[in-house]
């Protein structure tokens, strides 16, 4: 059996054990709040394959992705600006620190007044919470770009626009992605929270509604779906990050063991003999 398959099975073991454990316990306990596994699964199939996908899952996903995309665009754009110009950064810092400290859900009532009960208010709340990690990490990333790379660009008369796109942005990339990863989790949380207030569809709305009508197994299916959603989105994010920041792991010497396709060069670094080819 290959190491890959073994690793996969190992990853699967704990979730499986937890599920079985819960199933056995819930079956015997007969608790109203913790329905048996087969019941939850039955409802899950009924509700989410694919009856309520269009009415609740997709609207939620659309809001979350819209809010997240806006956060990335605003966070990276503003972060580049503030990272590159010190006066702007100094001027903006108190405001950024204040807004960042503000819990985004506190602005849900205000955003309902401003944007009504539709999608706009929910997207607004998501952006308000998710933009900060991206913004702050981008600022730090931009400030951390190697001055020598910038000197190299200036010495070769590379115009400012290209310097931003080809040097500053990729150089800040690892930090930008770190911020985006934190923001992804925040965006999912705020999606649920915003949908629990003055909403007529969405996963957050669904979970709250089922609880209010004491439809406990149904409520659990919504919670489980949210967990799965977060898991899948994070998995996709990590795949993208691995691809985009491959150079970063390579430059830090972290590629060697997993990608033997690039094997020869990594060994160049360690053994002194190939250095002779320089002479």
């Amino acid at each position, binding site marked *: 059996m290959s190491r890959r398959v073994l690793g996969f099975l190992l990853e699967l073991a704990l979730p499986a054990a937890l599920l079985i454990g819960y199933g056995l316990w819930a079956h015997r306990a007969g608790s109203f709040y913790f329905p048996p596994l087969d019941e939850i699964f039955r409802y899950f199939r009924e509700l989410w394959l694919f009856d309520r996908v269009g009415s609740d899952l997709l609207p939620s996903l659309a809001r979350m992705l819209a809010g997240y995309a806006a956060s990335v665009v605003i966070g990276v754009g503003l972060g580049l600006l503030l990272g590159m110009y010190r006066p702007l950064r100094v001027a903006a810092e108190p405001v950024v620190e204040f807004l960042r400290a503000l819990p985004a859900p506190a602005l849900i009532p205000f955003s309902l007044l401003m944007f009504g009960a539709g999608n706009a208010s929910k997207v607004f709340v998501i952006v308000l919470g998710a933009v900060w990690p991206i913004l702050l990490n981008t600022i730090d990333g931009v400030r951390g770009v*190697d001055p*020598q*790379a910038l*000197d*190299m*660009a*200036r*010495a*070769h*008369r*590379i*115009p400012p626009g*290209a310097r931003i796109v*080809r*040097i500053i942005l*990729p150089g800040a*990339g690892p930090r930008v992605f770190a911020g985006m990863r934190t923001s992804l989790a925040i965006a999912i949380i705020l999606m649920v929270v915003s949908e629990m207030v003055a909403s007529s569809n969405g996963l957050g709305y669904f979970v709250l509604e089922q609880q209010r009508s004491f439809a406990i197994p149904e409520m659990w299916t919504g919670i489980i779906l949210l967990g799965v959603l977060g898991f899948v989105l994070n998995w996709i994010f990590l795949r993208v990050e691995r691809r985009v920041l491959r*150079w*970063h792991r*390579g*430059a830090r*010497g972290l590629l060697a063991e997993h990608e033997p396709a*690039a094997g020869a*060069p*990594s060994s*160049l*670094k360690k053994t002194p003999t*190939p*250095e*002779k*080819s*320089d*002479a």
Partner: protein
Amino acid sequence: MLEVSNLRKVYGPDPHAAPAVDGLSFAVADQEFVCILGSSGCGKTTMLRCLSGLTPATSGSVVLRGKPVNGPPEDMAFVFQDYSRSLLPWMTVRRNIAFPLRYKGVDRRRAAELTDEALDAVGLAGRGDRYPWQLSGGMQQRVAIARALAYRPGILLMDEPFASVDAQTRSGLEDLLLNVWQRYGITVLFVTHDIDEAVYLADRVLVLRPPANVGHEAVVGLPRPRNQVATKQEPEFGRLRGELYAALDGRPVVA
């Protein structure tokens, strides 16, 4: 080719602060190989930054081919000491080399030609699709040299480019540099703190004394092509070495 007169650089707003470069004057002829020798902290890097237009000088002038240098000139390329920081790790070797060309107005096909030619000149043909971090230190510095060559500069400024590679790699890189210098017919201004390296490479060695000004000048009459073994065994090599050693120390030169 390059004329530097009365260059002075003071950092910070106070004009009476100790200058990093003061009263520096020298000229470099077309296709000449000039080494600037100085111990660390004598203002070599500041001087190079002023020459390349990266840092504005406080006073004095730098004139390249009759045109005063106010910003990085088109006719100049720069090779930095720390190759690992001046090469972009997110670009392949080939893209690193071709990157500045795009903004010089070179079209795609010509850029590819220049890149291949430069890679070939530094002995890295076939490594273009690697990333810099997949190469050894010496190879990375060769990529940096290739990038400068592909840029087709009239003059090449080099800031202690071989200071951070091992001795054997270093001799290889020195010979490679002499080879491309002649092949491309460029002018080289090479900053180093290594006396042997300066004598081995240069037509002329300028000794810099703090605050960076030319304290001594030595013309190197050693025959070319130079050879790592034979050249260094010539009596003239030993004599120049002694002369520069004394000059670097600030002692009167007994030549």
